[in-house]
């Protein structure tokens, strides 16, 4: 049982480039989330999804886009990368929503130079 799988693990982007961070879960979870983690700042929610075809903005959505065409996949798209997007990105999922803890992926460390 793989859980939540994120790719790539590391990436360096140049300013203005774009990329997609992949997230896949094999637990048939309806709820999926993208957070970014910056030192001393905790985790900030970027986008979340409550099911296929349904997404919504979190606290820090600017500069990002998501889609949810299947239950399993929840990719995060960065358009026109900026140094402020240098961060560690975590994808998470849960089955029933608010009473249950999230299962996190291992993260993607992104550096924009």
């Amino acid at each position: 049982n793989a859980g939540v799988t994120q790719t790539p693990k590391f990436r360096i982007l140049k300013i203005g480039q774009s990329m997609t961070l992949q997230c896949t879960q094999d637990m048939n979870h309806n709820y999926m989330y993208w957070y970014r983690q910056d030192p001393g700042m905790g985790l900030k929610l970027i986008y979340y999804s409550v099911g296929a075809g349904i997404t919504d903005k979190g606290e820090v959505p600017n500069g990002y886009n998501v889609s949810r065409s299947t239950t399993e996949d929840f990719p995060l798209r960065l358009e026109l990368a900026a140094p402020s997007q240098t961060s560690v990105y975590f994808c998470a999922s849960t089955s029933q929503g608010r009473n249950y803890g999230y299962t996190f992926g291992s993260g993607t460390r992104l550096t924009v130079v």
Partner: protein
Amino acid sequence: AQSVSQHNHHVILSEAASLELGCNYSYGGTVNLFWYVQYPGQHLQLLLKYFSGDPLVKGIKGFEAEFIKSKFSFNLRKPSVQWSDTAEYFCAVNADSGYSTLTFGKGTMLLVSP
């Protein structure tokens, strides 16, 4: 919207010392509360959670936390820490309604010296 405050950003303890990490939340309604741990270079793992019932909850690795509603607090405790407990600890909360998402505190870095 809910918010979470973790008062200690860094804590240094010797092995066998007792641990208490503070967590306070701000929200007027019913909440669910969580503690996560992040070992160096790894992802977040759930330590314990509270959503109803006994306010004293026990989690993995000998950790426990007590929900005190009147103080809006959910402090994490462990009677005797080990070197392997060195990690960053995050408190998180969500409202017990709708599609409420988890809001995390800024984290407390615990360093346990052998």
